[in-house]
């Protein structure tokens, strides 16, 4: 029983609507566990239940061995650092005041909060913004400040709900780098994202969610091995223009045809060989793109057949 968070058949309903249809997961100490899914897959609902903004409808949830019913009590919230989806920094306060006031909620004295706040601003690369009003910060800086705020109480568990949504590539990488540093320090992290790259970069283990359920779980490598072949050829021809009997031809060559998001993907053990003989299927090489399979392929294979996409 060394799981830091454990859930069994966790479900949430809003009236008739089932936002979460019974998910189970176990998170180990010190690991980074990610929930990957579309908007509305149930990721944020799960996070909100853990950090106490939603009640549990069914199933159970344990944090540090303590059963939560129906809502996370304040003393458990003491061990969390929360990075919510929206930046709810206090616009009436300066950067350092945001940290000091938030520290006050955790019974950290004003002086201690100020010292710790300065350290965190240093760590997040924001020390030149100490006395700036938060409204004047860029999106990336705001995000880093939210993370700094989440660290003020030296949390055992950090919960990040889409930590880099809306950030530019530089800002995103900077956030990742900080999060990896925290992980090295042994902090347990829970994050939701719909960015495959983010999940692959940060997470030890992942749960792929769709429509309120977990469809697959495991390390990024394990998921790739389990659900797709190592190479993929993306065919850039619309489906109704494909040569006849292409599925059979691909099958005969040892490949696997998958149709995801209105495109043909050919998965194969041996990418180079398939690529060199692609003309045998009737496809032109210039319309095909060979690359190693990645998490996105797994994700699309599991969730991408949604009607609306």
């Amino acid at each position, binding site marked *: 029983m060394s799981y830091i968070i454990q859930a069994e058949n966790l479900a949430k309903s809003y009236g008739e609507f089932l936002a979460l249809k019974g998910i189970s997961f176990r998170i180990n100490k010190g690991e980074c566990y990610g929930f990957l899914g579309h908007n509305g897959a149930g990721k944020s609902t799960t996070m909100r239940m853990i950090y106490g903004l939603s009640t549990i409808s069914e199933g159970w949830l344990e944090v540090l061995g303590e059963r939560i019913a129906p809502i996370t009590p304040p003393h458990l919230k003491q061990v969390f650092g929360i990075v919510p989806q929206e930046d*709810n920094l206090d616009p009436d306060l300066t950067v350092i005041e945001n940290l000091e006031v938030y520290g006050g*909620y955790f019974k950290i004295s004003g002086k201690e909060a100020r010292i710790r706040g300065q350290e965190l601003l240093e760590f997040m690369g924001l020390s030149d913004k100490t006395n700036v009003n938060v409204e004047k910060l860029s999106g990336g800086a705001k995000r880093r400040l939210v993370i700094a705020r989440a660290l003020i109480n030296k949390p055992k568990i950090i919960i990040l709900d889409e930590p880099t949504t809306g950030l530019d590539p530089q800002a995103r990488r900077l956030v990742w780098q900080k999060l990896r540093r925290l992980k090295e320090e042994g902090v347990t992290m829970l994050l939701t994202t719909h960015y495959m790259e983010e999940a692959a970069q940060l997470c030890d283990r992942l749960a792929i969610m769709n429509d309120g359920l977990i469809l697959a779980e495991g390390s990024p490598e394990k998921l790739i091995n389990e659900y797709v072949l190592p190479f993929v050829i993306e065919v850039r021809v619309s489906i109704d223009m494909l040569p006849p009997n292409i599925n059979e031809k691909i099958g005969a060559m040892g490949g696997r045809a998958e149709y995801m998001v209105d495109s043909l993907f050919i998965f194969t053990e041996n990418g180079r060989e398939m690529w060199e003989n692609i003309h045998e299927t009737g496809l032109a090489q210039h319309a095909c793109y060979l690359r190693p399979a990645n998490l996105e392929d797994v994700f699309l294979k599991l969730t991408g057949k949604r009607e609306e996409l």
Partner: protein
Amino acid sequence: MNMAFSILKRHLIVFRRTLWSNMVFNVIEPFLYLSAMGFGLGAFVQDMGGMTYIQFIAPGMVASASMWAATFECTYASFVRLHFQRTFHAMLAGPATVADVVAGEVLFGIVKNIVFGIIILVVIGIMGQVQSVWSLLIPLFLILPGAVFSLMALSYTGIINNIDYLNYYITLITTPMYLFAGVFFPVSTMPEWLQTLAWFNPLYHSVEVCRGLVVGQVSIILWQHAASLVFFSVVLAPLPVYFMRKRLIS
């Protein structure tokens, strides 16, 4: 309760920054009423039970300015924190409960109502309208109406989902309370049924106590008014917690 004071501390940091701009606005209005009504209307009104007209309305200005301060804080300002700034959500992600958040808002409503009560008290003092040292008890007394007005306003703020609906609260609740509280004329001149209704108007009790203390007519009746306000506070206390919980926790 510790947490509520940590939240209050947050509000006070912000308040300190906006105190001066806030103060000018909050002083001008009662000052305008006081001079227009006191000097204008007062010229026609000769006797208000042994007081001049300006003497009569001055303590009511203290009580009503306090009410407006608490009301605006726990309507518009709380609404902005709840919906636009999501300050409450941030507090709840920390170790606060909804009751803590509500308590923090109400405490701040009380603080603002006392601060503006004191300011108006000083203003009417400068105008020579404070007759008794009993007035020094007013800041302490204002805790009671401050709690009632904050709880009322915050409950309504928790019910509505659009900031425009706050205007209805001001027009249909706060303004009638203001007009029928014995600020501008004695409640005893109103029809019987309005007099009965006045007992349910917290501002009426606040005005009566403030007037009693300002002019030095201290009697056992003042305790009755104070007790009514305590009663209202106790009855109202669970309401904003209930409505805010419905808003904040899904």
